[in-house]
């Protein structure tokens, strides 16, 4: 609890900005959903042939998981992509159903005789709608808006996956860091927000249905409250105009690198907007194509195979060159590498390495007939995984390697259940658990050198940007990266201060 409050206290500006983004996202999407669903509901209420297919369609939309929806929208021009716009589209789609349904239900539940009276008084269809039907259906419609808004507060946390900001940023950051405090830092305000929205709209609904003389006053008060909140958040959430947008993928190392990149650019006096924690390689890649983000850190091997769909290559320089050319063809520039290679690392206990003088994987091959190995599921299957490794280095384990969860395998090695594992070369646990990486002298593993990818256009527009980023080139060693991952994952230190401390040292 005190850690949580401490986290908020040190992140108060960021917290306020995320809350503001969250509220704005929900308010805007709910408002637009109203603007679509209420007229549609009015139109459909009198046309049963239309009402049920519409409701079914809206129902189907509702059942699509929101992450899948972001996935569908990713390649759609104008609506999709990365950032608040795509998030807005998804939230609007989710808001349509409850509002549509309650609008239709509200209009249909009006007593026949009252509608007949309106006609008999000589009301035109428009007057009947405005003076009789809408006022009578309003409490029902507001109930739908309330559901849409509350669901929206929840769904909006997922918007962080595509860089739309909001409180989901903490939740995702916490999940990737396995840090409950950070998860709660986002989840608790989101829950409070949902309760507040629910309460406020419930008051509005009650105020409207109670038909008292003070009803306009009540409704006006609730409306004023909503308007005030909106105005306040609109001010706070305004993004930096013309800022350089820095992205990152959604795991600890990427968050640190994104922060490092952002702070390096800020040090050069350029404005930065952070859109960290994006949901994966392909999202980041597309975002640099569309201009939703201007720069992020990619790994050469990943770019080669996952982005450009080319075969595996073991030569670091060749891969870098190939990827640089591919990026150049698509309007992006690959800047010189940061200096570390996040590849598979064959790991042993430091004590064993010292005792037996182990330095390379060849050394380990000698010991392999007496050893047990443990590997992650993925490593057992990948083309650049275990089978090739065993052949290249002539590994002869007496038993087939144990297959286990990647994170667990570090602990299994440290506690002596296995003697050799394949981990990530930059994992903080290597330092934390006193493990040693054996050198891949035969260059079996493809290179995953970290390097900044930036939009060529942005580099052109901000001449100071290139030198600002190149401050990092060749300055982040594998040990540095391990230490920073360790600080974040094991010591639960704040990512911003980890990055700031590193930059202060590299000056």
């Amino acid at each position: 609890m005190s850690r949580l409050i401490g986290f908020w206290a040190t992140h108060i500006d960021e917290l306020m900005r995320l809350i503001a983004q969250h509220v704005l996202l929900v308010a805007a999407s709910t408002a637009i959903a109203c603007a679509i669903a209420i007229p549609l509901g009015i139109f459909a209420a009198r046309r049963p042939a239309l009402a049920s297919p519409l409701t079914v369609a809206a129902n189907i939309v509702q059942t699509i998981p929101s992450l899948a929806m972001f996935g569908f929208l990713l390649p759609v021009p104008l609506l999709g992509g990365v950032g608040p716009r795509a998030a807005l589209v998804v939230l609007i789609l989710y808001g349509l159903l409850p509002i549509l349904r309650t609008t239709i239900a509200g209009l249909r539940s009006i007593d026949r005789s009252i509608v007949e009276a309106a006609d008999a008084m000589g009301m035109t269809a428009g007057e009947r709608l405005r003076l009789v039907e809408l006022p009578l259906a309003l409490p029902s419609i507001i109930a739908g808006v309330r559901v849409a808004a509350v669901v929206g507060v929840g769904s909006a946390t997922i918007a962080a996956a595509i860089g739309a900001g909001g409180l989901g940023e903490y939740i995702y950051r916490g999940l990737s860091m396995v840090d409950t405090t950070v998860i709660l830092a986002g989840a608790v305000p989101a829950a409070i927000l949902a309760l507040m929205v629910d309460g406020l709209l419930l008051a509005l609904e009650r105020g409207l249905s109670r038909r008292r003389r003070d009803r306009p006053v009540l409704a006006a008060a609730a409306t004023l409250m909503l308007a005030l909140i909106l105005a306040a958040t609109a001010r706070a959430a305004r993004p930096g105009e013309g800022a350089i947008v820095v992205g990152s993928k959604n795991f600890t190392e990427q968050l640190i690198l994104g922060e490092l990149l952002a702070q390096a650019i800020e040090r050069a006096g350029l404005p930065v907007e952070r859109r960290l924690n994006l949901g994966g390689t392909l999202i980041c890649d597309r975002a640099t194509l569309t201009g939703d983000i201007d720069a992020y850190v990619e790994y050469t091997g990943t770019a080669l195979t996952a982005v450009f769909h080319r075969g595996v290559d073991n030569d670091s320089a060749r891969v870098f060159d190939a990827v640089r050319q591919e990026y150049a063809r698509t309007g992006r520039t690959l800047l010189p590498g940061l200096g570390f290679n996040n590849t598979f690392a064959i790991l042993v206990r430091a004590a064993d390495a010292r005792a037996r003088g182990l330095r390379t994987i060849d050394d380990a091959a000698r010991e392999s007939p007496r050893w047990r190995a443990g590997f992650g599921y993925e490593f057992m299957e990948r083309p650049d995984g275990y089978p090739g490794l065993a052949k290249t280095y002539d590994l002869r384990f007496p038993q087939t390697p144990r297959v286990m969860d990647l994170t667990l395998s570090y602990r299994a090695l440290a506690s002596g259940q296995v003697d050799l594992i394949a981990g990530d070369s930059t994992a903080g646990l290597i330092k934390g658990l006193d493990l040693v990486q054996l050198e891949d002298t035969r260059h079996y593993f493809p290179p995953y050198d970290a390097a900044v990818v930036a939009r060529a256009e942005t580099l052109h527009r901000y001449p100071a940007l290139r030198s600002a980023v190149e401050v990092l080139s060749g300055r982040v060693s594998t040990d540095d990266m391990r230490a920073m991952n360790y600080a974040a994952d094991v010591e639960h230190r704040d990512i911003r201060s980890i990055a700031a401390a590193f930059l202060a040292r590299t000056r």
Partner: protein
Amino acid sequence: MPDAALEFRDVSFSRRGVRILDRFSLAVGAGEVIALVGRSGAGKSTLLKLVNRLLVPQSGTVHVEQRDTRDWDPIRLRRRTGYVLQDVGLFPHMTVAANVAIVPRLEKWPDDRAHRRAVELLDLVGLRADAFADRWPDELSGGQRQRVGVARALAIDPPLLLMDEPFGALDPMTRAELHAEFRRIQSAVRKTVVIVTHDMGEAFALADRVGVLDDGRLVVCDVPAALAKSTDGRVRRLLDAVLSLRGGDA
């Protein structure tokens, strides 16, 4: 009737294959109160809806002020025609005063004029404006609601007033009281009034002429005194029901 305020000419109307009106003809003079009596389902409400063009006849014509309803702008026609609905149909989200002032509001009267008119009408129907103007419909008794319904129908002083079982759902005491009220109001405002009811007693109490509807046709239409002497079986049946209730002293 050469200058009838309202005239049905050979009107037929059927719904879902069932004939409700069959070559129905009737002329109503200006300022006349006419009551049409028939059993439930005899097409009485349909008759009224034909007058303000909520329905149009399938054959024959309906004339309001010598003009075919098909030639009227339906909105104009309805605003010139006061309508007291069977179940009153007050707007539950509007106060009594707002309900009464609804047609003036549609006619874009200034607010203060509409409000003065509402107060005037509430007085006319015997509801004190200071006590009732700001009440909600669900705070009223059945009789009070009926009075508001009448006040609403009279709001822009329409020449024609249609009343669909206006006092049907009330207890006998309230009903008698409202009958007296109606006669008092009518003597003050002099409208052409068409009342449909299943109750011959009510028809006798309110109308200048009473018509009897049977099987979609007008069997007879005459002043109450003449009607009372009718020997037609269909008329007698309706009359006998009233006479037995009153102990035979009509």
